[in-house]
């Protein structure tokens, strides 16, 4: 990628200062264990991790398992063997990771997991407010159509956050009998957005008439992207899309004229990365933070966005609470960052 024009001097300086400082928390190596590179979301998330670690004067090693859980477990082993100072986990399953995480904890390596489902004592688990995000978007959907809608659900099982969203979804349908699910599908594949697009096109052919489908609820923005493209290219202006999660690419799609994508709820992926690093440093610093951290989601309504294009970086100017999370900071950490 090319250099952008607006590299902030401040940031790079901060990194340099910390790196050269003599602070006892400086120079730590953080291992980031990814299950899968999920497109833009992952890229921004990793950027957040790297940015925060750099500010603390540390460095990041990224282990990507390309979706392969066995490799993810091996990567975890490798990180432990290499003596990482802290381990961050992004997704994965309890069954595959618990063993490795226990080993890490035994060896005194701090572990912070994000949406990984691991349940080992001493490990900080981050989760997005999944149920809340589901509720927020579903409520908006219901409000937009006065509680009467035929919806398509795009969702997949097998991921802890997905299942938490599913719980909220089922509860919501029970409470709102006017909302009917006409179809449900979804799969996390090597190429989720494109595959979803093909499936959504099929669904649209199946329900060709206006009103057959009022809206699509996508439990993940990769699903939403595929659905939005399918709807746009079929020229179906009658269908709206509600989703969870938000990346830059999503924002561009939402801001497009006449976009069917009207709302989303999300935690800033960059923020997730930053917060995860902060908790890791708390652990390194010997503090004892709470073990279950729920990240505060933000609701984004397309109507609130301005005319000019915004990015996740500038989004905070229009959406309250975005990209400005202070979660996980302690005085020690601020001091470290301020060096």
């Amino acid at each position, binding site marked *: *990628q*090319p*250099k*952008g*024009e*607006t*590299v*902030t001097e401040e*940031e790079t300086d901060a990194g340099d200062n910390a790196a050269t400082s003599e602070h006892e928390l400086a120079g730590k190596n953080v291992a980031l264990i990814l299950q899968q*590179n999920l*497109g*833009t979301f*992952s*890229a921004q998330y990793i*950027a957040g991790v790297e940015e925060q670690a750099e500010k603390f004067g540390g460095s990041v090693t990224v282990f990507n398992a390309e979706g392969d859980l066995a490799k993810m477990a091996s990567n975890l082993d490798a990180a432990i063997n290499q003596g990482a100072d802290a381990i961050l986990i992004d997704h994965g399953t309890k069954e595959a990771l618990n063993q490795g995480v226990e080993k890490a904890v035994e060896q005194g390596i701090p572990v912070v997991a994000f949406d990984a489902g691991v349940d080992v004592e001493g490990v900080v688990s981050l989760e997005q407010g999944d149920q809340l995000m589901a509720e927020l978007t579903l409520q908006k959907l219901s409000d937009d159509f006065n509680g009467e809608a035929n919806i398509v659900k795009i969702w997949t099982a097998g991921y802890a956050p997905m299942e938490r969203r599913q719980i909220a979804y089922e509860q919501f349908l029970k409470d709102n009998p006017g909302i009917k699910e006409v179809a449900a*599908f979804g*799969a996390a594949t*090597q*190429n989720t*957005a*494109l*595959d979803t697009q*093909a*499936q959504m*096109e*099929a669904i649209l*052919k*199946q329900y*060709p008439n206006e009103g057959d489908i009022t809206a699509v609820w996508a439990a993940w923005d990769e699903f939403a992207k595929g659905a939005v*493209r399918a709807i746009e290219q079929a020229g179906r202006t009658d269908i709206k899309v509600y989703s969870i999660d938000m990346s*830059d*690419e999503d924002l*561009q*799609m939402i801001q497009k004229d006449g976009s069917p994508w009207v709302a989303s709820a999300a935690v800033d992926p960059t923020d997730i990365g930053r917060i995860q690093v902060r908790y890791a440093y708390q652990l390194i610093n010997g503090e004892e933070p709470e073990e279950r951290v729920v990240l505060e989601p933000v609701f984004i309504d397309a109507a609130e966005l301005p005319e000019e*294009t915004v*990015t*996740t*970086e500038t989004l905070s100017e229009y959406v309250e609470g975005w990209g400005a999370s202070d979660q996980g900071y302690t005085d020690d950490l601020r001091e470290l960052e301020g060096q």
Partner: protein
Amino acid sequence: MQAVEKKSLSRPKNSAKENTVQFLFKYGAIILLVAIILYFSSLSEAFFSYGNFADILRSISIVTLLALGVTFTLVVDGFDLSVGSTMSLSTVVTASLMVWYDMPLWLVLLLPLLIGVAVGLVNSFLITVISIPDLLATLSMMYIVAGLHRTYTEGYSIYNNMPLTSGGVAPGQLSDAFLWIGQGQFIGLPVPVWIMVVMVLAAYLILDHTRWGRILYMTGGNAEAAKLSGVNVKKVKTLAYIISGVFASMAGVLFTARVGSGQIDAGAPLLMEAVAAVFVGYSVLGAGKPNALGTFFGAAVIGILLNGLTIQNLPYYAFDIIKGAVLVTALAVTYVYAKNKFAKS
């Protein structure tokens, strides 16, 4: 004459089987297409309409370009498995040229083609100079190019106004002129359909009606004989892989224009469809060899089949089975025919 008569008399069974294979080989693909169209038309009125066919044609245009490239390599008795990755690379490069570097349209259309040329050159280097078998060489390149395209974008897809990892926002946008290539209409047909038709015809003319085409087929049919006739076999193979690379990168450009962004891994899922199209096309009108019209035809059969099955609400995850089965059937017909033909000579 006598011998022939005697032969067919003494083996009536065999002969009947042979005839069936011959017939299937010659008209099987066409019968299949007509049957599929009739079947789906009977199920849905919307199917047999100008609009739907234009849609189907548009939907197969990218695969067809990819498959044309594969056709050229098969003509010279090679095989290019790297086309999917090359297309992915071309997709992100095309988008990046506009979004990251704000380049003029002509460069945006030209540079990706050079990437295709480069991949073709590396492929043919591995094959003709290092003597790695075609399939293995292009399989490796498939992975390398896939890795390159991901490294190039650092794992991001490329879209208008994307923020850059180094901070700031990308300066450019996909221009409307560019998007017209993938989404516009021209004299009543979508632009991608025009591009596909022109390319199929060009490939057909080159392969079937020019000296070059003859040299390509000659090289594929019997490299030794071609060499003895004064053909520089390595050069011809190199050319075929370059053509394949260029077609793949054209497919990538078209994909970017169609989708309006530079998606990661856009080409990978299209590889099998392209290969299947070529093999289904082998049999069109009994050509018995890779040919441009057949490839188009094969892509159409698969496109219509998938379109129809989608309407039939077949679960998406079963599509791979259908595609694989179509490919196996096409291969089986091709190779059973080849076996028969060989036995006869």
